């Protein structure tokens, strides 16, 4: 009950804070993108190979690019107020449809990498803490250090070489088998097998961070008096770790994990490119290349939404983990 009311308070507080943040992000991004040389008309003209000044002016007029910057901004905000993300000159479709077709893939990749890195990282950390300063700890620490220092795209390429090229266990790219036209469970299974490698390569770095953090947090908590009190109660080592140590150690881990959600989205762009994963990251990259600023703004806006919502979830998780955090 207490948890529910805390969740409600936390949500309403976040909603109030999120509105100006999102508005600021939109305006700032819009103005920054004006500094980029070239626009969509330039790219289209360049690709077609020949274009007269008249056709380019016509294109600009059609896309609304001939207006003064502030008018363009006002138009964009007006669209937003009507819950529309504008129109993509490049794809000739509404930006909202474009993003909505990509968003689930990015969310799926982010979520699976996030869960994977947290679960594996905490498990590694707990294992290292249990064997602190003995050889299993040292061995795993070394492995974690390698995970930490290897760049995501390199890990991606290497596991493609190993698992798809050499062993042939998993597909190397894309989100579905092309032309397989599967339905139901088979389709889901197909998607999941395509998801494995991108998730792993995205999760590597974060796994390493959470493993190190969990290890040190658990060793820190183990020195606390209440752990000694729990031992004095006659609890077994497993019960002590689970009920007393781990839950306290998770608090710093979830804090950092919450801060990492933005980085995870950034990392997703690289991994999506390596694996040809049809997510928002690749859409954003393509949009930059095509100077398709409406799409880019939409992606940035949606990304900030994703990060805000994820942070709310982390806040709720925090409130559940640590009862001392009470409607501060």
């Amino acid at each position, binding site marked *: 009950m207490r948890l529910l009311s805390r969740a409600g308070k936390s949500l309403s507080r976040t909603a109030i804070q999120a509105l100006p943040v999102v508005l600021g992000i939109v305006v700032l991004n819009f103005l920054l993108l004006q500094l980029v040389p070239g626009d969509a008309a330039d790219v289209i003209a360049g690709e077609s190979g020949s274009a007269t000044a008249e056709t380019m002016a016509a294109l600009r007029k059609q896309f609304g690019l001939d207006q003064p910057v502030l008018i363009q901004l006002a138009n964009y905000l007006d669209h937003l107020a009507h819950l529309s993300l504008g129109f993509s000159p490049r794809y000739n479709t509404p930006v909202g449809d474009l993003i909505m077709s990509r968003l689930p893939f990015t969310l799926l990749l982010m979520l699976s990498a996030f869960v994977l890195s947290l679960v594996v990282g905490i498990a590694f950390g707990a294992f290292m803490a249990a064997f602190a300063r003995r050889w299993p700890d040292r061995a795993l620490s070394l492995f974690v250090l390698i995970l930490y220092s290897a760049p995501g795209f390199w890990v991606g390429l290497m596991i493609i070489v190993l698992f798809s090229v050499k062993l042939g266990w998993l597909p190397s790219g894309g989100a579905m088998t092309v032309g397989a036209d599967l339905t139901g469970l088979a389709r889901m299974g197909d998607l999941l097998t395509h998801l494995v490698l991108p998730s792993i390569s995205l999760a590597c770095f974060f796994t390493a961070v959470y493993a190190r953090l969990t290890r040190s947090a658990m060793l820190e908590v183990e020195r606390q008096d209440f752990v000694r009190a729990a031992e004095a109660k006659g609890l077994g080592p497993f019960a002590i770790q689970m009920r007393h140590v781990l839950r306290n150690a998770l608090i710093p881990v979830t804090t950092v994990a919450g801060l990492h959600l933005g980085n995870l989205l950034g990392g997703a762009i690289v991994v999506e490119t390596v694996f040809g994963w049809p997510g928002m990251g690749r859409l954003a990259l393509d949009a930059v290349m095509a100077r398709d600023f409406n799409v880019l703004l939409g992606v940035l806006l949606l990304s900030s939404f994703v990060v805000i919502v994820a942070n709310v979830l982390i806040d709720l998780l925090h409130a559940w983990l640590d009862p*001392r955090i009470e409607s501060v």
Partner: protein
Amino acid sequence: MTAPNSAMPPSTRTPGSILRSQGPLLDVRNLSVAFPGHLAVRDISFHIDHGETLALVGESGCGKSATSFALMRLLPRGTAVAGEVNFNGIDLFRTDARALRNIRGKRIGLILQEPMTSLNPVRTIGDQIAEGLVRHEKLTWTQARTRTAELLDLVRIPDAARRYDDYPHNMSGGMRQRVMIAMAVSCNPQLVIADEPTTALDVTLQSEVLELLDSLRRQLQMALLLITHDLGVVAQWADRVAVMYAGRIVEQAAAHDLFERPVHPYSQGLMRATLRLDDGTHYSNARLSEIPGSVASAAGEQGCAFAPRCSQATEACYHAPPALVPFRDRLVACRVAVEPSEEPFRAVVGR
């Protein structure tokens, strides 16, 4: 172990009564504790009888807490212990981990010094009390909840039934220490070890908590090992006292005897350094007596650890540590004090 507890009036406060013949509840022999690079407890022996309160007194760093944790084998990894700890005929140092866990919390309860940090901040106090009950008494969590409410009531927490779901941060220091006490006595232990249970509390709460502890001791017929540096607490609540200095027990006596006639020079110094309202001492007319020097001088001392601070130390005191030997009604570890001719010695004490 088969000796019926009920045969003994729980309020028996005379040490060395007939009950000694049944064997002590806890018998510690030649206990030593070594932290890496530092010998904290040196070869100490003492015992606790059923239902009695033994106070272990001494200044900070003299090895009191190390002793108490060593009894339950709760010292951090890398700490070496030696000796023998017999609890009801079981050698706690040689029993396996599983058997030890069956004794911890069930037969021996522990109360720690700092109620702020000895409760897990992210779990309800009720759960923390109940988990011991679930572990040892094989209760379900629902049954344990009911029993926990009774325990909270027993330690005089008002509105006990509703406090189960409170977190430690919802409670005051005194309440938290009551929760710790409830936790320690939850499975009717035969022995409770209280490591400076009132040091972190303010003075008005101290006597309340100690009074509670003592009444529970009588009610539940348990023995109490009270670790403290507060002589006032010792005088009021202990049956017997063991005075520790630099890792050794220097004097062991019935509380009354110790306060009446301290024999070891260190005990004498402690008594002189205690203020009494009735003797008219006040900072404006007298200086509080002190023991010269500091405990740091005991480091690396070959002989009696107290010798560098002792006004009566002889040449022999510096050669080998004195043994704890019977002397009249007590045990004392001092060559000078136990010498047959005690007239010149008395004169020095008088000052």
